[in-house]
């Protein structure tokens, strides 16, 4: 058999490929499969949070903020529990980032509140003296694109089987029926805010970008899976 292989370089190459590929598969695939599974209890982003994630991407928060806490003591002291790969299972795309001009935000929901974000996005130096972060006042007036966020939820549900409920499905009618749920969530956030324009807009059925962004930032952290953990 081996003499035959020596006389047939093509099949010899196939044999070598199979042997090396097998070694790669047994080492890489099991870890890969485990790491890409969602953390137990992880909920997908709500439509409002997805809209906030889009605001986060649109205004390029990733240029200065990472979302990846590495397992080093210096990092976990500052930002909390290190990140797990399964926490990003519903992040499309994930926003790890590679630049920390500002702090990491992967657990920001654990130690910052709606009120704080409101003050901070309006005028960062009012809460963090010496901060070089610019103010994002336009977020208080611009409307968040919740329709696109809904479409995104429908898409990931159909394509990747992200576990959304039955009420998220394609079609304008379904969206019209779902819209009040997004508004109800926005109202909860706005109730903790002080800006009058934002409150008025939410009461009038609009969702300013700041509300969606705060919903998203509040979701970053252990609250996304801790509550549903099997005890």
């Amino acid at each position, binding site marked *: 058999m081996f*003499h035959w292989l*020596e*006389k047939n370089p093509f099949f010899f190459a196939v044999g070598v490929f199979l042997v090396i590929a097998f070694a790669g598969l*047994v*080492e890489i695939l099991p870890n890969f499969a485990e790491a890409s599974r969602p953390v137990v209890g992880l909920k997908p982003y709500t439509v409002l949070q997805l809209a906030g994630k889009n605001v986060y991407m649109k205004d390029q928060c990733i240029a200065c903020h990472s979302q990846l806490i590495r*397992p*080093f*003591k210096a990092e*976990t*002291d*500052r930002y*909390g*529990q*290190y990140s797990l790969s399964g926490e990003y299972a519903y992040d499309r795309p994930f926003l790890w980032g590679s630049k920390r001009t500002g702090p990491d935000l992967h657990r920001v929901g*654990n*130690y*910052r*509140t*709606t*009120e*704080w974000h409101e*003050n901070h996005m309006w005028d960062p130096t*009012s*809460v*963090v*003296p010496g901060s070089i972060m610019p103010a994002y006042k336009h977020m208080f007036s611009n409307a968040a694109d919740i329709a696109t966020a809904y479409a995104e939820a429908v898409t990931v549900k159909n394509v990747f089987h992200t576990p959304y409920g039955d009420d998220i499905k394609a079609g304008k009618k379904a969206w019209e029926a779902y819209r009040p749920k997004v508004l109800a969530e926005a109202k909860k956030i706005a109730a*903790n805010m002080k800006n009058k324009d934002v409150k008025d807009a939410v009461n009038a059925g609009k969702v300013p970008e700041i509300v969606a962004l705060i919903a998203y930032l509040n979701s970053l952290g252990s609250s996304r899976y801790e509550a549903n953990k099997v005890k």
Partner: protein
Amino acid sequence: MNALMIKGLLFAAVLIGATIFVVESMHIDLSDPINLITMIGAIAIAVLTVGVSIKYINQMKTDTASGELTDENWDGIGEYKNELPSGWAYSFLGTIIWALWYWTMGYPVNAFSQIGQYNAEVKTYNQKFEEMHKNADKATLQQMGESIFLVQCASCHGVTGDGLSGKAQDFGSRMTKEQVLYTIKHGSNQLGFQMGAMPPMMAQGKDAEEIAAWIAGGMKGKQPAAFATCASCHGPDGKGMNGMAPDLAGYNETLVKHVLDHGKTGEIGRMPSFKTMLTPIQDKALAVYIQSLSN
């Protein structure tokens, strides 16, 4: 002894002689072991080079082909059937045994774990930290508390702890009148004190106003009669009966610890829990620092 051998030995002798000549003419100190070893090395290389060359040149001159050819030949070039060299064969068997170990134990059980390394690092550090600060004095705690405060607390409570004009608790005093009224109105069951939940509306109207004004004023002057209701849990002096209930007069250690562990939602807004971020000594240090802010 053939001609080649004689030539080789002569050549080796010339090389050795040349080496010794160089050493002598450069006045190299041979009592220094480094120099001596280097010279012996140079001579050994000369001898080995000559010896090995003689062996192979002789072999090329005298060897003839023998042995059985394999079936293959490549454009007329054949290959003998040779025994596997035993060293090679045993090494190969060794790699198979190693592969079995690696497959069953080395990779799945003994693999390097980044998280394991992190856990060990944190454990060692925490032990060292606890040991070092077991009996920390007040000055150390104060300093530690200030550092923690600046990193974790200052972004809401402000660098000076003044609460950034009402955005968070002002550590310069204990409670404002509005805060006391809010708590009386809503009750509280957030901090996990041993005394349990505080029901809403324990005092009303003028009584509540009086209590609030008195507490906000730093508990000076005559205690309002209605405070008796509060005193049953918070103690007649409002200090929380040795940690059974929240301290209304200041920021004692139990109060700070309970708020850090449980977070708090009140008249100002919500403060999240910092339970996973701080160790008991750090809680204590924060309490010392916060107490120093209100003095």
